[in-house]
């Protein structure tokens, strides 16, 4: 009788050990060897994410993928240094990082040839091989983005995260769960960086502990970017490439819901102006405040001599900001692209110069981003309004400032919304957001933009588990390239947020 507890304990330990062993065996069970008997199929495999014939940077993380409705998958990847097989859990192919990077390094300027073998109904099929072209141009190693449910009003669980593109490491830059209590959420948005670096960066917080978190020369300040001369707190922004200046739009935002249109929501600005903020002097200066123009999305040219933005012309019938009237006429809000010359010496701006007349095409162009060589402007274009990620016909466009013509970017677009495009620090990679996978959850895509001005097929940011984005019930929105990770820790942001924000001046 005395031995009973001992026996019980021994049995318990044995059971735990057996369970762990079984799990390990299960993990090791995956056999990556190629099938000896298979049927050749005269078709390319339908893989998710779609990496068939894409062009990738030589420093990207493994392009893991999966095949639907099959029991098992292995793939053979041929590179200049030889062939390797990879498999994974059931219908997934999970490529080991070390081997992948070696293959990419050997295939720079060439391609990898991928043959997929899939087991369906107990029989192996071999699909036509496809290529993955490996560019010689590296991509900026980091991106940052907002992670949030496809929400309309609430903002309980929001995070700004950063991802190392050369592997699968993903961390929070700041997460509002650090400060939120109950349903009293905190909206965090508009993260941006000076020249793709993180020593100078910023993001806004709204509702709980509102203000703007600015990092300058690695030093953190918390600023209340709102004064009496501004119609609202500063919102959409862009860092001047060299000066301690951030351009902002300030705006009154409203949103309404469709009853049948699957675009679901319309976001409108009933008033908006442009300002610049001098980080060192803690001072704002109005740039544009025409009441009949709704100016938005400022964006500096990389040489710092131009401030690009978009603007919609709208005159209220009753001369006051009648939101009901605007709601009735929301389709009239179509934005054109403009730019202002900037004199850094005198801190003055020239007259608005129209660079793209979207309205004449019955379209609305927003979110301009200029390439480092100053030649191209990427922007999002939709039927009206400014929040194109909700417009099913929204697409990314690229304007060639030399010719004044649009570049063929059909490889970027799909039948579902695309938005928020930007260039990498060396112009060779385009980053944008898209809802092409399911229409509702925003995902991050890249595309190669070669030196001949040709855009290549876009591909989704790779994940360790290729099913990740299918399972994730959150969007990755507003992606930005970064050359380095953010070094300020989430705790430092949190601590700073508990302090009183510094009031901005307009002297």
């Amino acid at each position: 009788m005395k031995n009973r507890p001992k026996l019980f304990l021994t049995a318990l330990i044995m059971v735990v050990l057996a369970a762990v062993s079984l799990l390990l065996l299960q993990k090791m069970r995956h056999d990556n060897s190629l099938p000896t008997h298979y049927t050749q199929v005269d078709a390319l495999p339908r893989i998710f994410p779609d990496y068939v014939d894409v062009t990738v940077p030589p420093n990207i993380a493994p392009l893991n993928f999966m095949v639907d409705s099959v029991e098992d998958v292995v793939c053979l990847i041929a590179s200049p240094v030889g062939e390797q097989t990879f498999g994974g859990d059931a219908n997934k192919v999970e490529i080991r990082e070390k081997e992948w990077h070696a293959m990419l390094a050997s295939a720079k300027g060439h391609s990898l040839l991928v043959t997929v073998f899939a087991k369906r109904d107990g029989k192996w099929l071999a699909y036509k091989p496809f290529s993955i072209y490996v560019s010689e141009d590296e991509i900026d190693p980091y991106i940052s983005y907002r992670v949030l449910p496809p929400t309309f009003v609430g903002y309980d669980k929001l995070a700004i995260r950063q991802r190392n593109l050369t592997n699968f490491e993903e961390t929070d830059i700041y997460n509002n769960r650090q400060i939120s209590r109950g349903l009293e959420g905190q909206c965090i948005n508009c993260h941006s960086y000076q020249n793709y670096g993180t020593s100078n960066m910023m993001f806004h917080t709204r509702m709980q502990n509102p203000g703007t978190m600015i990092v300058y020369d690695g030093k953190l300040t918390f600023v209340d970017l709102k004064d009496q001369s501004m119609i609202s707190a500063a919102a959409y922004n862009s860092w001047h490439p060299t000066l301690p200046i951030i351009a902002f739009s300030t705006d009154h935002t409203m949103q309404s819901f469709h009853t049948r249109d699957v675009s679901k929501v319309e976001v409108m600005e009933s008033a908006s102006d442009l300002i610049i903020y001098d980080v060192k002097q803690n001072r704002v200066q109005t740039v544009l405040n025409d009441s009949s123009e709704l100016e938005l999305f400022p964006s500096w040219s990389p040489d710092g001599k131009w401030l690009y933005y978009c603007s919609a012309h709208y005159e209220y019938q009753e001369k006051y900001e009648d939101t009901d009237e605007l709601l009735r006429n929301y389709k009239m809000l179509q934005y054109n692209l403009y730019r202002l010359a900037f004199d850094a010496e005198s801190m003055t701006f020239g007259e608005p110069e129209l660079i793209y007349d979207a309205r004449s095409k019955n379209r609305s162009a927003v979110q301009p981003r200029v390439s480092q060589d100053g030649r191209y402007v990427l922007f999002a274009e939709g039927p009206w309004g400014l929040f194109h990620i909700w417009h099913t016909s929204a697409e990314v466009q690229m304007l060639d400032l030399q010719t004044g013509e649009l570049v063929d970017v059909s490889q970027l677009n799909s039948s579902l919304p695309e938005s928020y495009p930007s260039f990498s620090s060396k112009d060779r990679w385009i980053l944008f957001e898209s809802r092409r996978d399911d229409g509702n959850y925003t995902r991050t895509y890249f595309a190669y933009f070669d030196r001949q001005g040709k855009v290549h097929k876009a591909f989704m940011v790779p994940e360790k588990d290729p099913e990740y984005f299918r399972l994730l019930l959150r969007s990755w929105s507003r992606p930005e390239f970064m050359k380095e990770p953010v070094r300020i820790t989430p705790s430092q942001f949190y601590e700073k947020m508990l302090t009183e924000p510094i009031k901005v001046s307009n002297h």
Partner: protein
Amino acid sequence: MGTSVRKVLKAEKDKKLKRKEKRETTICVASPIIFFLSFLMLCWYFLYVRNADTMYFLQDRGWWNSTSLYLKECMSVPGGLLAWTGSFLTQFFYYPALGSIMFIALMAMTFALAKWSFRVPSEWSFLLTIPLAALLCSDIQLGYWVYILTDVDYVFYHPLGLFASLLLSVPFWQYLPVSGKAKHWISLAWIPLVAALFYYPLGIYALLAAVLVALRTSWKSLILLVPVLWLVPMLETSGSTLMRPDEAWLYGFHKFELNSLRDYSLEIPFYLVLIVPIFFPFFKKLPSGHLLLSQGTMAVVAASICLCLAQRDFRDYNFHAEMRMQRAVEECCWEDVLREAEAAKTPVTREMIMLRNIALINRGELCSKLYKYNNVSIPPAVVSDSIHIRIADQAADLIYYNYGETIFAIRRAIERCMHYGYSHYTLRMLTQCAIVNGETENALKYLRLLSRSTFQRKWAEETQRYVDDRSLLPKCERFRMPLHLYNCGSELVGVDDKYVELTIMNKWKSTLTDDPLAQEVALGCAMMLRDRNCFWAQVQRYYNIHGDGVFPTHVQEAMLFDVYELGMKGVNLSFVKFDQTVLDRYQAFFTRLNQYSSQGMNDQALGNALRPEFGDTYMWDYCVLREVQTN
């Protein structure tokens, strides 16, 4: 002689004493067993008999799936294993009887473990049921909080936590073949270890385990316990971005908090669950053999438990009826919805009225039976004077969907997910909306997730057919009317400001459609809102569509009332083929109204007097329920 009598008397006295001892022993052994069995029956009564609808609802608004992503998300915060396991087990309330049995089994296991581990004397073992009763209470007291619970694992999280704490505090060192001193050191080492190793899987319950281990080791170990309790949560959560820094010590403790409101009364059970086990190690020191004391205490505990459970059980009729009606609407059991509506004799909530109207719409009876049911409405009961729930928080998506307003349904569903997390219910609703909208890939995304849960797989497989073949939609009761109303509804842009009913009615009263089914909804909404312009425009349209002059009963009543009582000008009712019954009742209503008025009855008395005879008419509704009530 005298000696033998004395002997006999002594023997008899001994016999009596033995009998008494035996009786006392029997009572000591039997009464705790009876007590505990009664407690288990009480669990069954409150969980299954009284709250089966609530328990089903809790699993339906819960969420579990077998993906590694879900597991990873659960494990990213303290108490992750409890959250994952709790949400897995909560699913079993899909069959409330099965869920209840599992809950009761866990209660029994916890009781047995505590009794064995802490060597609690049988006569005092009833004390172990106090935290268990608190756990039961925590499930049945929620009321309208069920709509705003953020925990998808609520039902099993804390029972599992308590069980795990007790299990981890079992003094295994006593069974190890080592010296007494070594045993002491092992027990001391186990205090920080149990807290550190299990803080992430078990949250606050790992700390409870550390406390129990310390208490059963020695008083001196409390010196070690204090820094452990302070440091472990702080160190393990330092750098975590998924919680407030000040939450580290209480992560896993359920707070009933909504913005600035906090309902401490609902938290009492959780205080008991955490505090009472601290006394378990001392129960073995309670005096044994004092039958009066133990049995008296048992009686007090039994009475207290019964009283508390009876008191805290949320018995509001409408609360339970709403949940039953929501389920019936989702499952298209229109008869069940109407049976609930008919059974409700006291004032009902606006949500019940909306759900009933959905059943009537689907049966094509909105304008002919609308007033035959109870339309006297009240707001949902308030829980602990803190939460005023509205349709927007309850089943707005379900209601919007059934009126074909899929975009608004998605909006409300997503907003709720943002606040309270995804649920089986929400994913089903989002799937159906996506199918009606033609958002195939989006529907597939949700179906993939639902098929990874335990009890939603069948629903996902059935629904997959409608994604693959849209031509089946009009033949499916779940999609038939929503699709119809979606296709016939007008495209507008606006907001609902949380007024779900008013938003739907305002849209539909002015929707001009030639579709007979959708037009009857429009006519019904105009009639309910008493909007004369819209009503007559819809009457005209109804006449144009049907062309025979035959109108539903309530529309006939409304037309008579509007023309003859309210003096609507310019309407010639000759195009209407009135039912003789309608005409007779209309006349009888005003005869009776005048009669009662002349008796000096006040409005309320008048309404009550007329109700048995005319409570099912438009006239009664208009005259008695003066204001159009919406939410």
